[in-house]
Structures are given as structure tokens and as C-alpha cells.
């Protein structure tokens, strides 16, 4: 079997070839290398470019100010193709072959969990953003930069209901409609429980399979149920599609909240005026009163436009991403070194100033406070309306 020999030879050759690509060990004068993956291609790639731009901006800013510990910073970002198994393997590559000094997490729950497993095996600290289900974070050296708190399934709905209650307009009935996308479904289940506790009457509960195409019947059922408030557990364009479907049967719910909408299209759509969503950052005061945030917003708007992104505003995704970099570099600067254990210990005891506010990591699974705010589409723009001290100047929750 010549063929088998030839193939085995080729495979071994490939292996050796990959082995030779291994770089020499970094010395202290060489740049600090930070490795991460993003879903640059594949089904999750819609927001990849945001995270890539943010990382590039942050590293530029860092290097302009002399880098970290006096060394330049180099960011190695690879494409995990939206697949957890590839994410896992590339994190191993970053650690064992590229021998990066630090890791920064990918986005999307499945990929973060995969990366976390690798970090755990190599005792590397992993700062990540946009992990939607805190229960999945079982590693004690992982740190979430998206400050949703340890129990967002309770705290986020409570924030939303608080905002509604503050309007003074009575709301008694609720419809919960949700995608079965894991991180969204998790929040919607929580919202049901909270709504019940707070005395809402649930007039409708519907769940659909992620990837559903026809929202007409769901919209009709919501219309028939006549709820005072609709909780839309949807991710990406699902929420936008449902809102459009409701508009098409001439129905706009008195009030609707969307979990993770595609922010750009929802702000611009005439169907979703006054819709609510959760956010940790919007590019208006008081968020932009922070000088770092203001500068970042300016650069990001510019870069996003150049990269041909349809929506150039900084919101949750970009802000969580930027915060992750802030958390990681804060730990390095505070411990004056790259020791994962030392950084981890420091983070657990201290708070970090980020553009979304002060983050701490001393609760369950290293989560801290829930800093989620409520935003609303007003005149084609997202503005924060709750809590009051974070509301845009002069903005109030509009109840039509």
C-alpha cells in the first residue's frame, strides 16, 4: 500500500512543519502578546468586526502611551469560525504554540465556554465579554467584563420592571415570547418568574426555535392576548422580525422590551419606536462624561464608518469589549507582572474602572454587580432611560 505510506508521510510532514513554526520564547524586551479568537467568519460573525475594531483601537491607544509594563503590546487575533471546537483548539494553539502572555476571551456563549476550559487547564486568567449565562462560568480565574451580575435572569427583569413601574402607568398583563437560543431563553425563563412575583398576569408564553422564519402567527397571538407589556426574548434579527410582523397586522404593543436586538436596524425601523432593550453603554452623557469613554467613542465612530459597518454607534457589544481590555490591563498594571494567579487574586479583591462603570468580581462565579440599564428607541436613536442617574440628559421613558 504505497498510498497509505505516502499519506502517512504527508501527515507527518505537516505535523513537523507546524512544529517548526513554533516561535522562540518571548524575552522581556519583546512585546507582550495577547491572544484571542473571534468568530470572524460563520453564523456568529455579525458582531465580530465590532470586537476586532475595539481591540485594535485599544492596543493602539495602549502602545501610544508606552504599552504595558514598558513593553509594546501585540494582539494576536484568530478566526474561530463560530465553532466551539475550533475555538478550543485555537486557544490551545495560542497558549502552547504561540505562547502568548495573556488571553482575552472570544464572544458568544459556546465559544467562551470552550475557551474557558482551555484556560483552566493551563491556569491562565481569562477575561471575557458577552457571556450570557453566568452559571456556565465554572472556572475561578475567569472574569466577565460584561457586568450583568451573577443572576441576570432575576436582576435584569427587575430593572426593566422597575423602569416600567416608575412611569406610573399601570401595567398588569405580560406576554413573554422567546427564542430558544440558550442565553436568551435563560433570561426569559427568569423574566417569567420575576413577573409572577411582581404580580403581573402572564397572558401569553410562547417559545420558538432559533432560526424561525415566520413570525406572523406569533405576532397574531400576541395581538390577540392584548398584553400591557411584551417581553421579547430574541437575539439578533429575531426581535426585529417579530416587531415587523406585529406592525404588519397593524399592532404595536403598548410597551415592548427586546433582550438582545440588532441595535442598528431596530433604532432605524419605524416599527420599533419606543421599544426597550437592555444596555450597559450608550454614547451619550453621562457615559461619555468619562474622558476615556468619550475618546473611545470618537475613534470608534470613525473606524466603524471606515470599515463600512452599518451602525457606527458604541453600544453594549463594543463597550463590553473595551471593558475587557481595561480589566485585563488594569490587572497587569496593578500586579506589575504577568503572573496569572497574582492578577486573578488582585481582581477578586479590587474594583476596576471601565467605561461602563466600576466593575468588581467578588460574587458567585466572579461576577459582580448588575450594571444593566434600560434603553429606549426615541426618534430613531437609542437613549438610556433607566436608572435615572444614567439616563441621557433630559430623556425619560416614553409611554405612548
Amino acid at each position, binding site marked *: 500500500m504505497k*498510498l*497509505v505510506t505516502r499519506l502517512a508521510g504527508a501527515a507527518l510532514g505537516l505535523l513537523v512543519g507546524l512544529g517548526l513554526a513554533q516561535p522562540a520564547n518571548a524575552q522581556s524586551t519583546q512585546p507582550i502578546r495577547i491572544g484571542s479568537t473571534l468568530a470572524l467568519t460563520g453564523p456568529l460573525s455579525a458582531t465580530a468586526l465590532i470586537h476586532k475594531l475595539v481591540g485594535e483601537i485599544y492596543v493602539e491607544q495602549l502602545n501610544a502611551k508606552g504599552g504595558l509594563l514598558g513593553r509594546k503590546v501585540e494582539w494576536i487575533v484568530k*478566526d474561530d*469560525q463560530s465553532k466551539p471546537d475550533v475555538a478550543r*483548539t485555537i486557544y*490551545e494553539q495560542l497558549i*502552547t504554540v504561540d505562547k502568548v502572555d495573556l488571553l482575552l476571551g472570544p464572544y458568544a456563549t459556546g465559544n467562551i*465556554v*470552550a475557551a474557558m*476550559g482551555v484556560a483552566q487547564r493551563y491556569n491562565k486568567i481569562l477575561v471575557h465579554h458577552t457571556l450570557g449565562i453566568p452559571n456556565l462560568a465554572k472556572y475561578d480565574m475567569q472574569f466577565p467584563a460584561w457586568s450583568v451580575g451573577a443572576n441576570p435572569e432575576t436582576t435584569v427583569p427587575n430593572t426593566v420592571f422597575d423602569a416600567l413601574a416608575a412611569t406610573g402607568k399601570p401595567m398588569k398583563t405580560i406576554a413573554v415570547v422567546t427564542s430558544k437560543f440558550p442565553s436568551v431563553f435563560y433570561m426569559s425563563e427568569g423574566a417569567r418568574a420575576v413577573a409572577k412575583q411582581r404580580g403581573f398576569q402572564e397572558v401569553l408564553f410562547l417559545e420558538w426555535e432559533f432560526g424561525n422564519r415566520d413570525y406572523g402567527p406569533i405576532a397574531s397571538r400576541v395581538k390577540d392576548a392584548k398584553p400591557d407589556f411584551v417581553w421579547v426574548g430574541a437575539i439578533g434579527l429575531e426581535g426585529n422580525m417579530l416587531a415587523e410582523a406585529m406592525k404588519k397586522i397593524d399592532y404595536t404593543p403598548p410597551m415592548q422590551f427586546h433582550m438582545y436586538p440588532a441595535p442598528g436596524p431596530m433604532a432605524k425601523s419605524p416599527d420599533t419606536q419606543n421599544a426597550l432593550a437592555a444596555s450597559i453603554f450608550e454614547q451619550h452623557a453621562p457615559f461619555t462624561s468619562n474622558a476615556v469613554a468619550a475618546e473611545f467613542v470618537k475613534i470608534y465612530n470613525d473606524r466603524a464608518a471606515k470599515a463600512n459597518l452599518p451602525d457606527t454607534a458604541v453600544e453594549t457589544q463594543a463597550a463590553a469589549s473595551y471593558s475587557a481590555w481595561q480589566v485585563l490591563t488594569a490587572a497587569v498594571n496593578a500586579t506589575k507582572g504577568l503572573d496569572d494567579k497574582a492578577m486573578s487574586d488582585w481582581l477578586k479583591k479590587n474594583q476596576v474602572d471601565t467605561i461602563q462603570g466600576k466593575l468588581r468580581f467578588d460574587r458567585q462565579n466572579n461576577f459582580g454587580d448588575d450594571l444593566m440599564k434600560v434603553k429606549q428607541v426615541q426618534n430613531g436613536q437609542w437613549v438610556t432611560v433607566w436608572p435615572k442617574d444614567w439616563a441621557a440628559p433630559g430623556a425619560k421613558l416614553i409611554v405612548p
Partner: protein
Amino acid sequence: MKIPVFGWIAIGGLAFAAVPFLQLPAFYESFLYLMCFWIVLATSWNILSGYSGYFSFGHGAFFGAGMYTTATLATKFDWPFLWTLPACALVAALLGVAIGTVVFRMDRLRGELFALLTLAVTFVLATVVLNTKIDGGQGVLLSGVAVPSLLARPSSTFYLLALAMAVGTLAIAYAIYRAKLGLGLFAIHDDEDVAEVLGVPTFRYKIIAFAISCALAGMAGGLHALFISYVTVGETFSIIVPLNVVLMSVLGGSRHWLGPAVGASVITGLLYAFTAGNYPVAGRAAVGLILIVVILFMPEGLLGRLIGKKRPKTAKPAADAKPVAADPAPLRPGPSVASDGPLLSVSGLAKAFKGVRAVDGVDLEVRPGEILGLVGPNGSGKSTLINLVSGHYRRDAGRIVFAGRDLAGLEANEIARTGIARTYQIPRPFAHMSVETNVALTARFGREALDAQAARAEAGRWLEFTGLTDKAQALPEDLNLHQRKFLELARALAARPSLLLLDEVLSGLTPSEIDHAIRTIRQIRDQGATIVFVEHVMRAVMELTDRIVVLNHGKVIAEGLPAEVMNRPEVVTAYLGKPQHA
């Protein structure tokens, strides 16, 4: 010394098993893990789909069944991880057998409909898993499940497990490829109806292949569940798994046992080549372009190309076939039948298609050692009768007793093994098999079920008898019509039948070829076979047959000695459509 292929698989496996001891960075192990993982999935898919041509788009369902079996057993029932793997194989195999039992009985669910059906099963399964406690919607986290400590590093353990599965899968794929099962599957691929009639138990073979294919995919799924450690419905039951395995198999060559493994290695490698670059989107486009170029220029896959080169070039078919060998091999007659009784007796046989009665209450007997001519105008039911006796059609009514045995309820392949063989009017050889393999196949699946070597010898004998010896290694497409008709004959004879059903073997031949064929058929009879001879060429009917039966509109209208029967007015009317004296 020549090392057998199994040896090479073992050596390759051992060599790769040494990788963890080289203390390479863990990444290489994980990369090789993914390669092995895809090798298992693609190769397992190929065992049913590549070999038998039943293209499944449902591999994601079986892979997913394995994933969720491990996820459920390991997290909810605290099974040790390794124990879940056999359960994965079992669950997936049972799922496959359940689907196969329903689907494989249906003649029309071949080709793209089978692909669609398996895809639909995937979506149905996904919906069930999502909406029940198996998943429920939030995914299953396996980070608390202990990775077995076979080796120091988890990446080494995963790699070794995947490698073991890959080696095992390749060994199984190769074993099937070489075994009778593989031969039967390839016959199903080329022409399932013919395979069944020649004695291949097609239903059973498809089920076995499907079960093995599913079991391996399920096991790979179980392992992968722990590798990614967080299992969700969206990721598991996507169209990506079936698409990838099809891609890999076809790229590598789906007719070769090793093809899918080559395709899997190439595609996994290619995808990784573009993860690190600055232009991942362009890299993805490049993968698409490579795929197009490879398929356009190597339509049979990377290995198909290699196999193609090995096949000896055959000369263009000669204008005339060789004369019949002077000393043909003896044909051993069928089971001893009471010499006074008929070999085949048909009574009250009926078959209708959409209300048209093709065979309408036919009674006839075939006596041992005779050549019975079956004649009648086009559409009189001759071919239907042959299809009923050989079991290809199910009869609506009537009895068929062969060699004292009632054939009721027997599958076509079982009927073939009782000693009935047939030829097709329009030759239907297995297109992708050599002439020799075509003939040897019936020897292996015929009444005597010869082993591979004896079957080859038997094939050689009948090829010599029909003058096709120098075409033994050619493909059927290289034969002319006359040679193909003789291939049909050789293939039927290699089953060593006691009853041979010849369906218009002479149509389309030149007069000299007909003379040649008549001589051959006479020699066959002289060796002890009983023959039912369906023919339009009257000269041959008159020369060859001992007795004839005339059919018209599905009914027997005359029976007796050839010269006498053909002069009866009702027979002439049936043929010419008007009374003789008019």
C-alpha cells in the same frame, strides 16, 4: 514481504499513537483530534452512503444522538464518560435501524428522496431534543464531567480516543470494502433491483451498513460532546455536519475506503490554514475556490484519480466476439428434483399495474431439462411473468412452486438462492465493477455462496465459456451490445442455477451473433440447466425450444410443440392482429 492493509492501518495507528509521547504542544494533539474526529464522521458516512449510494443528509442526527446521549448520561445519571460511548453507539444505531426498517423497504425512497428524508429526520430530532428535558433550550454543560485520565494531559486523552476511533473506523470501512458485504453494497450502488434478483440481501445489507455507520457517528458525537463541553441544539443539529461529511467524502473519493479520510484531513487542514491570517474572509473564499477546482478536475475525488490510473487500459471492443470455448466447464444442475414432477409450476398467477392486468391467471409448468419457449406479442406479459418468478414484483394472486418449494413470501434474493437466475433484455451490468467482478458477484451470492477465491475461479470459467476472458478487467461500458448480452449470460450462469430465465437475449444481435448465441444456449442446456426462453426471434425459438407457451394479454392462449403451436389460428391472430384466413 507484503504487508496487508490491516497491518498498515495498525502501523499507522501506532505511529500516530506515539504523538503524545513526543511532548508536542497540546495544540497539535487537538488539531489531530479534530482531524480524527472528521475522519470518523466522514468514513462512517461513507460506509452506507459512499458504498451503497444511499446519500444520507442525516448524519447530523446520528452524531447529535450520540452527543446528547453522553450529555444526558454523564450529567443527569453520572455515568463515567467512557461508559457513555457504547451507549452513544447503541442509541444512534437503533435510531438508524428504526429509520432503515421503514425506509429501506420502499423502492422509491432512493437517491435525493433518501437524502431529504434523513435531513427531515434531523430537524424532527432537533425539535424533540430542544423541547423536551433532553435539552430544554439552555444547552447542556459538561464541564463538570471528568475527562478520563488515560494520559497526563486531557488533550492527549482526547486525541488518543479519537485516534482509536479513527483507526477502528478505517479498519471497519476497509473490512467491509473487502468483504461480501462491501461487494453487495457496491452492487446496490450500481443497480439495486438487479443486485436483489441476483441474490444480494439488499434490505439486510443496507440495514447493517446503516447501523454501523450510525453507531460510529454516534460514538464520535459522544466524544465530541465532552471535547466542546457545552452542547446546544443549534450547534449540534445544523446542516454543517452532513454538508461537511459529504464534502470530505466526495473530495477524497467516496468509492474508496480511504477516500473520506483523505478528504477529511485535507479539509480540516485547509480550514486551519486560514484561521490565523489577516484575511479570514478571503481565506474562506479560497477554500470554496479550491473545492470547485478539485471537483471540476477530479470528479471522482482525490483517490478516485489514483484508482483510475491503476485500472488497466482495455482495448476498444472488437467487432466480433470470440467463438465459444471448445470445452466449456460443466454446469452442475440444481437440487435433485423428483424427475417426474415439474421443476417450476405456476398456477393462477396474476399481477396488475394501475388496473391493467399484465398477467392474468397464468398456469404453466417447466419440466426438468427442457427449454421452454415463452412467446407472445409485445405487452403480452412475458417480462412481467419473469419478474414475478424472480421475485422482483410481488404477485397479486397465484402460486409459484419451484423444486417442490412454494416461493410465497420469499424475497427476491432468497428466490435467487433457491437456484433461479435471470438475464435482462437490456443488459444491466454493475457499471462500476469489472466484467470479472460482475460475474464473480453472482457466484458469491448465488445458491452455493462461494468464497471470494472460488467465485473468481467460477467467474473465470464462465467468462471463458462466453468468450469474455480477455475483457475480464474491462468495465461494462467498454463492451459492445453482443458482449454485454453474453456478460448477462455469464453472470446468470455463475450462480449455478437449476432454472435459467432468459429474457430476449437475442434482440438487437446480428444474424451471425444469433447463431453464436444459439449454440451457446444449447451448450448450457446440455450441461443440465433448465431454461425458460423468452424470445421474439422465431428462428431461434423454433431451433431451440422443446415446448412453447404463448401469452396474449396476460393469458396463456396456447401451449405445445413449437411447430404445431405456431400454426394455430389464435396464435397467428395474436401476432398479426387478424385471422389467418381473412
